[in-house]
Structures are given as structure tokens and as C-alpha cells.
């Protein structure tokens, strides 16, 4: 007796968003990245389209970071002082995208200037062919000062600028509008707050196909279940036709996982935690994979080995289309 599988036919779909611009489009990228377009829950190829695979971004900094796990500092040791080399190494390691997170202060401990930020961004653009996402240091004033300069200096590149939050989004959105960039919109693990910020941003006049939403996640062990469920709910709402949730999702499991004690600390921890390096990478991989399963379109990672694993998994998840059609 053949089993008849009930299929969900959803009325809505996720928007398709392209990051980066080729020379013909006014940018300098060798490749662009398109995400979104899903008409079904993650990888349910048998009942809808998953036209673009989720992509993996590697996060780099404009200088050697002060607070990263020593394991990461060691991994990127040879390139960590030069964002251009770091970016090139990240591309080499398989990054579909680069996330450049600007620091609050420069190497000398002085506040990062807009000129320095622009220089870092331009160096990274020159060193790579993949699209770029630029995050400010995370303090409203610094974010606005640095991102506006970066945005103007890279007009037409179709960068994604972040991070827009409900307390500070207007300047980033304004400069993105003026210079043809995208923004990422972050809300603290809540479906309604995510919708609200998307409404506020689109009310300013930025078209919805230039907004990536970051519903925020916790790392494994640190609230991942909230991120996981919020993402599933956002995706379900999008498929049900709620316009303000139909945006591709970007999440930063690398940042979250490497902040955890499990990744940061190697000594004085329980023996049951096992080998430090492998544990840390496992922490990042499991966090990222869980989020890919719940609908992430862009996952931002930090370690090349997790990038390799997550990309291999995504390949298999996408290839399954062949087995059901």
C-alpha cells in the first residue's frame, strides 16, 4: 500500500535577496550571493521550492580582537593583524560571504575613525571576490559614524550594513538607502519585535528586499532553544503569508558559540567536557546546524572547520531534492 504523504501548500514565500554587486551592476564583486525564495519549511523539497542554499559567512575583525578565544587567535594567527589577508584566508576557507566586524577602538586603543573603517572595508573588498557584510562596533554613536562613512565610500557595492536594532536603526537605514546597500535588522528572540522592527525600517522607505532579519540566537546551552523556535515561527509566519516576516534570516552562531565558556576556557573545566579545541568547534557546529535546520539563510561562523562541516551538510540537505522529485 503506497503511503500518501500530506503536503503543505503555503500561500506565502520568503523574499529573494541578493548581496553584492558585480562590476556591471556598479560593484566590484566577482560573485554575488542570493538567499531566500523558500516556499516550504527548511529543505522540504517534496512540497515546495528551496531555490537557494543557505550560505556560510566567516566573521573577521578589522584588527586582532581583544576578546576572542585563544583557539581562534591561534587558528587565524598568520592573518589576524591584517583584515585584507584575513578576508582572503576566510574566502579560501570556503566563506560564501565575509562579515567584517569593526572594532570600537583601533590598535592603539583610540576610537576607530571613519577613515580607518573605510580603509579596512576597502582593503577587504580588494582582497576578496565575495560579497561583504559590515557590522559596526555595536555602540550607537560609533556604529552611525563608521557605517555612514563606509556606506558612502562603497556606494553601489550592495553591502549589508548592521546591526540595526530598535534603539538605533534610522541612521544605518538612511545611509543604506542613499547608497544602495542592505541592512541587517536584529531583535532579541521575539517574533513580534522582529516584525515591528521590519515595519519600522520599511516605513522609512527601505524596500523589504534590502532587509535581512537577524532574530538573534543563543548558543547551544545558552538559550539556543529560543532562537530555534523563534526562527521556526518566523518562517511559518512567512509561509502563511505574513509580509513582514518574509525576509531571509541571518544569525551569528559563531559569535554566540565562541562567547560560551565551553569555547573560551581550556583549563579548570570539568573533565567531562573533553578536548578543548574539538569541543569548541563542536559547539559552533552544533549551534549552526541546529539553526540551519530551523530556517537560517545566512550563518556567520568563526572557525574554518565548522565552516567545512556546515557547508558539507548544506550540500547534502540541498542535494536531497533529487531523491524526492
Amino acid at each position, binding site marked *: 500500500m503506497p503511503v500518501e504523504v500530506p503536503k503543505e501548500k503555503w500561500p506565502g514565500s520568503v523574499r529573494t535577496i541578493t548581496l553584492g554587486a558585480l562590476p556591471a551592476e556598479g560593484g566590484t564583486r566577482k560573485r554575488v550571493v542570493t538567499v531566500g525564495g523558500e516556499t516550504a519549511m527548511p529543505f522540504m523539497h517534496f512540497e515546495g521550492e528551496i531555490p537557494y542554499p543557505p550560505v556560510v559567512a566567516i566573521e573577521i575583525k578589522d584588527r586582532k580582537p581583544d576578546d576572542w578565544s585563544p583557539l581562534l587567535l591561534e587558528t587565524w594567527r598568520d592573518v589576524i593583524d591584517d583584515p585584507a589577508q584575513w578576508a582572503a584566508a576566510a574566502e579560501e576557507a570556503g566563506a560564501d560571504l565575509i562579515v567584517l566586524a569593526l572594532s570600537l577602538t583601533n590598535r592603539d586603543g583610540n576610537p576607530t575613525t571613519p577613515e580607518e573603517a573605510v580603509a579596512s572595508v576597502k582593503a577587504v573588498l580588494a582582497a576578496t571576490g565575495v560579497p561583504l557584510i559590515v557590522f559596526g562596533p555595536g555602540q550607537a554613536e560609533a556604529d552611525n559614524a563608521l557605517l555612514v562613512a563606509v556606506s558612502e565610500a562603497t556606494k553601489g557595492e550592495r553591502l549589508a550594513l548592521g546591526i540595526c536594532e530598535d534603539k538605533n536603526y*534610522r541612521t544605518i537605514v*538612511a545611509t543604506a*538607502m*542613499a547608497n544602495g546597500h542592505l541592512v541587517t535588522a536584529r531583535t532579541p528572540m521575539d*517574533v513580534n519585535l522582529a516584525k515591528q522592527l521590519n515595519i*519600522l525600517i520599511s516605513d*522609512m522607505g*527601505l524596500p523589504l528586499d534590502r532587509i535581512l532579519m537577524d532574530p538573534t540566537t543563543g548558543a547551544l546551552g545558552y538559550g539556543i532553544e529560543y532562537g530555534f*523556535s523563534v526562527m521556526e515561527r518566523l518562517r511559518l509566519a512567512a509561509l*502563511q503569508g505574513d509580509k513582514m516576516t518574509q525576509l531571509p534570516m541571518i544569525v551569528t552562531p559563531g559569535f554566540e558559540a565562541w562567547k560560551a565558556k565551553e569555547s573560551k576556557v581550556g583549563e579548570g573545566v570539568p573533565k567531562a567536557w573533553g578536548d578543548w579545541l574539538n569541543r569548541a568547534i563542536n559547539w559552533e557546529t552544533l549551534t549552526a546546524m541546529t539553526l540551519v535546520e530551523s530556517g537560517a539563510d545566512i550563518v556567520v561562523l568563526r572557525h574554518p572547520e565548522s565552516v567545512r562541516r556546515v557547508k558539507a551538510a548544506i550540500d547534502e540537505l540541498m542535494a536531497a531534492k533529487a531523491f524526492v522529485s
Partner: protein
Amino acid sequence: MSRYIATRAIRGANALVREAELMLKRALAEKGGAQKVAFPNTAYYLPLIYGMTGVAVEKLEDLVPVIEHAKRLLHPVPSEKMWTPYLGETLDSGMATLLAAETIEAIRFVYGLQPERMPGFTLAGGTAYPELDSPNNGRVGHLNGPIDDIQLRSWGIQLVDGRMPGFAAIVGAAKSNEVAVKIVRELQKRNILCFLSGNVNGRSIIHQLIEEGVELGYDTYTVPFGTDTISAIYALGFATRSALTFGGLKAGQAREILLYNRERVFAFVLALGEVDDLKYAAAAGAINFGFPVIADTVIPEILPTGVTKYEHVVSMPFNEIEGADDLERAERLVQKCIEVRGVKVKVAEVPVPVPYGSAFEGEVVRKNDMRVEFGGKHSRCFEYLYMAPNDEVVDGKVEVIGPTFDHIEPQGHMDMGIIVKVAGRQMQEDFEPVLERQIHYFINGASGIQHIGQRDIAWIRISNNAAEKGFKLEHFGKILHARYHSDFGAIVDKVQVTIITEPELLQQWLAKARAAYDYRNRRLADLTDEKVEEFYSCTLCQSFAPNHVCVISPERLGLCGAYNWLDCKASYNINPTGPNQPIKLGKVIDPVKGYWTGTNEYAKIGSHGVVQEVSMYSIMENPMTACGCFECIVMLIPEANGVMVVSREDPSMTPAGMTFSTLAGIAGGGLQTPGVMGVGKYFLLSPKFISADGGFKRVVWMSSILKEMMAEELKKVAEREGDPDLIDKIADERHVTTVDELLVWLEEHQHPVLSMEPMF
């Protein structure tokens, strides 16, 4: 629409278009059609023309169709006898004026007549003119002319992100140099950009400011365009480019560009001095952008709102403005401009001599540390907030009437009344109590000040420490002014506070306040579900109960007990994209069980399809879902033909065989479970409480803590239900914890459910 204004604007437009046409003809003859035409450092050609018509003017001959277009927009001057709405014609003429003005300025650039020369003058930052600014040419003094793209971008971002509230196009000359300076300073203080142009009999505000040594240029947010009216066109070129840059709009999308400006760019025209035909025509152009015109002379007003967000043309004759002197009049004039355009005031810091912030909210001022108290055992303190017409409220005014506490002995007391008068275009009478309740939180934020209670049982203490630091009565007013603007700016435009300690006046106001409290109580009691057209949703709890929606009606408050219908209404007005959205009721499907087309539709959307229908007044059929925050759980006791009500605070066993915490697992989670419902405790008192199932008489068991907490109110409910002893007939955990005991109790006490219809 004033025929007078229409006539003059149409006449002005006709004249200017004709002038532009003649100039263009002459220029074509003298310079040839291929002569290049451009404004400095812009990628938007002649921006207004480019935006409005889509024509990218690069050569003189490109201007020919522009003038043709302008001519088509002209209308004959209305005859003396005709009386029709002239708005359309006037607006067309305004647009023609703008096209003509930009054409004229462009031709002037060709002839080297722009930017306007001003010998000896140096801009404090401005558009670059290498030729004129070169030391080789002896640095020719000049005004700014149009704003370049770099500055546009920098200011544009600030206008879009809200750091700059808007811009003022000031045209003409002020009554005196002193007034000119005051006006500009007042605008600068509010971060409003000033664009200067025009003159009255040859004298321009630009001259006035230069004479007074005011620095003009990009650096001071005060840009001198030119001393004639035509140069005011640069302000609209700026507005057009803003829309093209930040609104993602394309050249030629005239309507969208105008709407963008109306909705998003907070700009206005301030016409100083006599208004001539050309100024009327230019003003009509500005109105196209939704920018209102405020004149300091007598001109007919156009008050009905429509094209602009508020009034179109407002006349505020300078000498008639209330004020001690010209400076105060200038201040009021600017205030008016801001009101008319709806620019919101932000007060960055609460101006009090003690630390202020939510961290101080819980501070207690003990008797020993106290300087003085108002209210409490020995004195009276009340607070009263009411709304008043806009022109009856002076924003920021704080008045203390009566003695201060200087003469009161340490740890003494005195009477005080705090009267808050607010105005706002979005303000409604229903918001008065909601706003009044905030006084408690606002005042508590000051370090060393303790606030308890509300209305006429308010009780405020000022600590010695705060008094030593200089905290005075007026600071209550300063706090309230700042906080209402920052927290309730969406509904409040103006706030005026009066602190009364003068005994006689205090009694008068206390009587007024009490009348208002009474009125509000009655209004709340009268506010029934039948009297409104919309309920409100509350999705605050969806973060943990994703499919739950509270439907809040006047007679059914949120199940957490924290939000009633008025709160939701105010919350929606303050935050239109927030968690409280109006639910239009639509058609009544069943008035008894409480079904409307609107509530059902909303239930489906809000619950993401999990709940199909919701009944407002029944526990047996599609009851409202619950998140988990409910104050009480109501549950069917089938054996008793009634329901029990268990309070969150009651840990004991109930006749349902389960405690509150076990029941909570069944009642919560946003799932519809007929027979179980989570509610706010005050809903028990509502006439709509399970009214479809028989109402309050169905209650057979209730946690004793509820009986005690709401003894008075329950007594009234019993009377309403026609059974004054009803509450005593309801069992509680002190006597009954099983169904069997309950049945015996009901028999013994002859509870009305015994004779009611079966519940199912």
C-alpha cells in the same frame, strides 16, 4: 481656499513663468542651445526639474520643454465674481513657479550671476566654487547658492534618521536684526536647518544676520541661498533630492516625491515681512511639498488640512503675538511653526538638580531623612491631568502658585496640588487617566523623591539630600514636562504644569479634580462592550505563548490584569506598530456568546491559524486562550453545574482535584480548552463574565483570598445578580477541597446553580 491667495499666487506664477521664458529666449539667442547648464557638485542635474518632470537638463535647449510644461500649469487669474475652490489651480501655479524659478537660477549660473555675490562675506562652510574662492581671484565674496550633494547626503541622513527634525525656509526680513537673530537661534537650538533667502524692500534676513555677526554656512546649519525670493527654490531642490536619494524614488515620479516630502520631511516656510505676488506663488509651490507657510504679517489663512499635514497657511502678525518683548514674540513664532508642521519636541535630559533615572524608582525616603512631605497622614496632595485646546497650553511653562516649602520645619508637611494641562493633536479625553497614572513613575525617577498613590491620595516626600541639592517644587513640573514629551510624544504635543500650594486655590482645584475623577469612574463604568466599535488585541505574551492572543474589551480586561481597554487604546496611539492593535468588530454573529466577524478573523490571524473562533462571554464554547500570566483560573465543575475560580496566590487543593499550578498547565499555552479559562481577577466582577453560561451565579467555589481582596466589589456583584448573600453561598478552600464536599456545601447553602439549567 482663499480667493485672495489664489489670485495673488496665480498672478505671481504667471509673471515669473513669463520672466523665465523671456530669459531663456535671450540666453538661447546669446549663448546657443548647446550651452551647458548645471548646478555645482550635483548628480541630479537641475534637481527640482529633474524630479518633477524627469527631464535631465544638461544644455540650455533642454529647458525649452520645461518652460512649456510650466506654461501648461498656468491658469487665468480668477475673476472678481467667480467663487470656486481654487486649490488645484493654486497648486498648479505653485509648481509652475518652481519650474520657472529653477530655470531662472540655472540661466543665472550660465551668466555668472549665481551664486549671488556678497562682497566681503565668507561662508562658514558651503558649496565649493573654486573660481570664486581662489586666492588668485582675490576670493570673491558670495552666498551659497544651491546645496551640493555631499552636504545633502550628510544632512539628508540626519533628517531621515531623526537627528534633525526638519528645515525652515525663511524668506524675507525680520522686524529687526535682534528678532532675526532670535529666530535663527531658536531654530538652531532645536537642530532645525535654516535656509535663508528673499528680502523686503531690498533688506534680507541674510543682511540682518551678517550685520549681527552671525556666522552663516554649512557649519552653523544656516545656509544663505540668496537675497531674492527666487533663490528659495534651492530649498525645494534639496527636498527633491532627499526624496530621490533616501526615498528610492526615480526622476519624474512627481507625485511620489511630493508625498515623500509631505510624510517624511518636516519642513516649513517662514515668511517674514510683507508678502508679494511672487512670495505667494512660491509659497503655493511649497504647499505642493506639504510644507506649510507661516507668515508674520496679516494674510488670509488656509486652515483646512489636506495637502499639508496640518494648516496650509497660517498668519501670525508679529506685533500681535503675546509676549513681553520682541524676543519673546520671536520665540512664540518659532514655537508656532513647529506646532504647525508637527515637529516633535524632544527633551534630552530631565532638568533637575538631583540624579534622575529608573534606577531611583524604588527609593524610600524615611521620616528621618525627610525634608518635607505632601499628603500622607497630615496633609493633602492630589494630582490632576487634563487636556485642553492647543492654544490654551503653553508648552514647558511651570508655575508655582502659593508658598514654597522653605518655611516648613524639617520633617514637616504641607498641602499641594499638581495640575498638568496637556494638548496634542492625537490626544483624547480617554487618555487622561492613563497619562495621569504616569505621574507616579515619572516623579519617582528623581533621586531623593518618593511618590506613592495617585489622584487625591497621592503622597510625596522630598529627602533632605534632595532639598539640599536644590530640589524645588517647580522641578516636579520640569520632570513631568520632560517625561511626557519623551515617553508620550506620540499623543502629547504640549505640557504645562501648575503646582498649587495656595490654600484657597488648592481647594478649588481639588474640587475640580474630584469632579473629574468621579466623571472618569462613571465613564469607565458606562463603557460597555456595546458602546465601542473596536476591541484591542494584546500580543505581548506571544514570546512564550506564540499562538495566544488576548482580546481586550471594555468589559473584559487582559487576563494578566495589567491592561484594560483604555490602556490598550492609548498604547496603540503611542506605538501604532506595537502589541496592542485595534480589532474592528464588524458584524455581530452572536451577541450572547460574544462572536463578531472581526474578533473571529483576528483570532485566526493572531493565533496563526490555531484558533478559529473565539467567544468573549462563554467558557464552554471556544473560550479565549491564555498565555500563562492569568491571575485566576476558572474551571468547570461538571458535577456541580458550575465553575470554580482559583487564584494564583492560592496553593491549596481545589474541588477539581488539582492545584493552581497543575491547572495552569491545562489553561495556558494558547490552546483552547473548553471548560477552562485563565482570567484577570477583575473580570470576575464584569457583567460579561461567562454571561453566556449564566454569569457570576455559576461560581460555586472561589479561593478565599479573592473573596477577601475584592470583598466590596463582590458584594456589589451579588446585588447586581439579585442575590445579596451569593458570596456566602460560594465555597472556598477553608471548607471544601473535594467535589463531594462541594456538593454537600451547595445543598446546605442553597446555591442558585442547583436550580439553573445544565451547563452542557
